[in-house]
């Protein structure tokens, strides 16, 4: 059966709520409306207003109350409506969500999930296309997950809700309508595991979230147009990062590049490049390259295609990698 990523996320929320009555879903417009992307569609009608409800427009309040709920033994799953509106909650995330277990010497963990639709490519107005993953990945105590496929969206969200620590769950909003033929419920490799989406030999393309589809498109074109056999690795969990899978792939192919929409400078790709350099230096025939958005504020809709990495930009970088 064809399932979209939004549909898979909706099913994951519903199945988790049916299985565990401590799971509550709340945020802005997630109740009656079912969320602006309809990810919580029908949950209030089925589960009742105590289990899925709308809040005032107060992102810090949404995350701050989720902390109190989690202390009391609930498993809140809260939504930040858009990436660009998640910032008012950063104080709660950095000062409390990330630190509570450590602060209390392991006595109080916070089993909560903060869902954030992120990334561009949907022709949105300002503040609706941001990629804030590095802020979260840089913060000790957070687990940061981002699916690239509908089956991962389902399985990783189910696992995040059942997880004993707080999870920042980044949903690539331009892939909400990406379809996959699958029968729910599906299982997938756990949080903390990267997977090889396409096996190859010439070079490793490392991607996550919205760029997994783009990386696979580039790999297919490289094969079709130039006979270049690229390996594509989907990171899936940004923190903790599965370096083992990345090192194995880069060691095998001898060349690697990282793709993300977020700006390059001090971005997530720099961490992967540095780690690969430290751990696989002797196996690399070329420096690890980064294919990213530019170091500018996210541009307006009519020019965003010039900002976003696409298959062409990835293939240009592959050509540079192979020249070494």
């Amino acid at each position, binding site marked *: 059966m064809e399932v979209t990523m939004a549909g898979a996320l909706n099913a994951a929320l519903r199945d988790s709520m049916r299985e565990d009555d401590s799971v*509550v879903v709340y945020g802005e417009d997630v109740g009656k409306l079912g969320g602006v992307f309809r990810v919580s569609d029908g949950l209030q009608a089925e589960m009742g207003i*105590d*289990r899925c409800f709308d*809040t*005032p427009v*107060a992102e*810090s*309040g949404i*995350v*701050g*109350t*989720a*902390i*109190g*709920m*989690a*202390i*009391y*033994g*609930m498993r*809140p799953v809260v939504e930040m409506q858009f990436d660009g509106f998640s910032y*008012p909650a950063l*104080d*709660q995330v950095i*000062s*409390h969500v990330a*630190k509570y*277990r*450590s*602060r*209390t*010497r*392991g*006595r*109080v*963990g916070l089993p909560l999930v903060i869902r954030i639709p992120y990334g561009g490519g949907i022709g949105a107005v300002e503040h609706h296309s941001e990629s804030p993953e590095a802020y979260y990945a840089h913060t*000790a*105590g957070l*687990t940061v997950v981002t699916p690239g496929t509908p089956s991962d969206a389902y399985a990783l969200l189910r696992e995040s809700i059942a997880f*004993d*620590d707080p999870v920042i769950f980044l949903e690539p909003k331009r892939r909400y309508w990406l379809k996959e033929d699958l029968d729910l419920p599906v299982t997938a490799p756990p949080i*903390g595991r990267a997977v090889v989406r396409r096996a190859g030999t010439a070079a490793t393309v490392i991607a996550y979230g919205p760029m997994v589809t783009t990386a696979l498109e580039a790999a297919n074109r490289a094969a079709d147009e130039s006979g270049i056999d690229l390996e594509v690795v989907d990171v899936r969990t940004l923190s*903790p*990062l599965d*370096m*083992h899978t990345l090192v194995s792939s880069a060691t095998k192919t001898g060349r690697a590049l990282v793709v993300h929409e977020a700006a390059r400078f001090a971005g997530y790709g720099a961490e992967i490049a540095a780690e690969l350099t430290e751990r696989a230096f002797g196996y690399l025939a070329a420096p690890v390259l980064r294919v990213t958005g530019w170091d500018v504020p996210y541009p307006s809709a009519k020019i965003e295609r010039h900002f976003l990495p696409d298959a062409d930009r990835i293939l240009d970088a592959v050509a540079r990698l192979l020249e070494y």
Partner: protein
Amino acid sequence: MGDPVAHDIALSDEQLRSLYRLMALSRRVDRQAINLTRQGALGVFASSQGQEAAQVGAVFALEADDWLFPTYRETVGTFARGVDIVELLALFSGSWHCGFDPYQYRVAPLTTPLATQALHAVGLAMAARIRHDPIVALTFFGDGAASEGDAHEALNMAGVFGAPVVFVVQNNGYAISVPYRLQTKASSIALRAAGVGMPGIRVDGNDVVSVYGAVRTALDRARRGDGPTLIEAVTYRLEAHTTADDTTRYRSDDEATSWRGRDPIERFSGSLREAGLIDDGFVAGVDAEGDAITARMRDSLFDAPAGDPREMFDHVYATQTPLLEAELAILQQELTAAEETA
């Protein structure tokens, strides 16, 4: 809103004596903590002197299963709630950020980012309401923290969800050095309650019976399912913001002297003596108890061991990550090398 109003609720003689005892012990604990800071056993301390009635009166109204969400200003209120004083002072001694088990006492860690904990109290109260548990969350914040966005979000969300939570604002007149009149043009912080659809009450925060009465009324109301209340307890911070602060730069001796004349403990003990509820013998007994507690503070906090630095890796996640395992191994090498050279 005008002048503070009195909220008396009948208290037994025994309860009145308990209030005196807790306030007097609070003062002893606070003074000892300041001395320990001067002697280097604590890194810093935020005194509650002058605010004992506001804190003790509020927590005294709680039931056993209720939750408390304090800030760094509420050391004595948290002590009066029953948290072990040595565990409680871990934040200031630097042995661990939170030294007590929140679930043991139903008390959240002393919070330093202002007003953030008010939202935690609201969330816990919302959860209790969903579970149909008859418990209430009480949170403190100050007149300074009242300017934070989280204070407004907490009040508003508590109102919207009818959360069983009681907000106690200790208006001690200062946000470190900035006086109340430069923090808000409103005559009272309790006025904000009207803007979020809940009762707002202003009490004399140096009158322990008034504070108790107002908080008890608000707790009963919340427990009945009638929603949250904002209580402003008007008081004064007799000591500096913390041991690192210098009050001479921003306020006059006259002002502090005038408030010392309204000392909540002297005032309450005077009325209890007049009523014949306490005498020299009772006061001496409380003093002896204070001697024992402060002696234990000195014994436990002087030269307390720093703890095992490897523990910083133990509680970041429920399951250890490869990254932290690798970093712990490096720290272990550093520790081993340091031991060998020592």
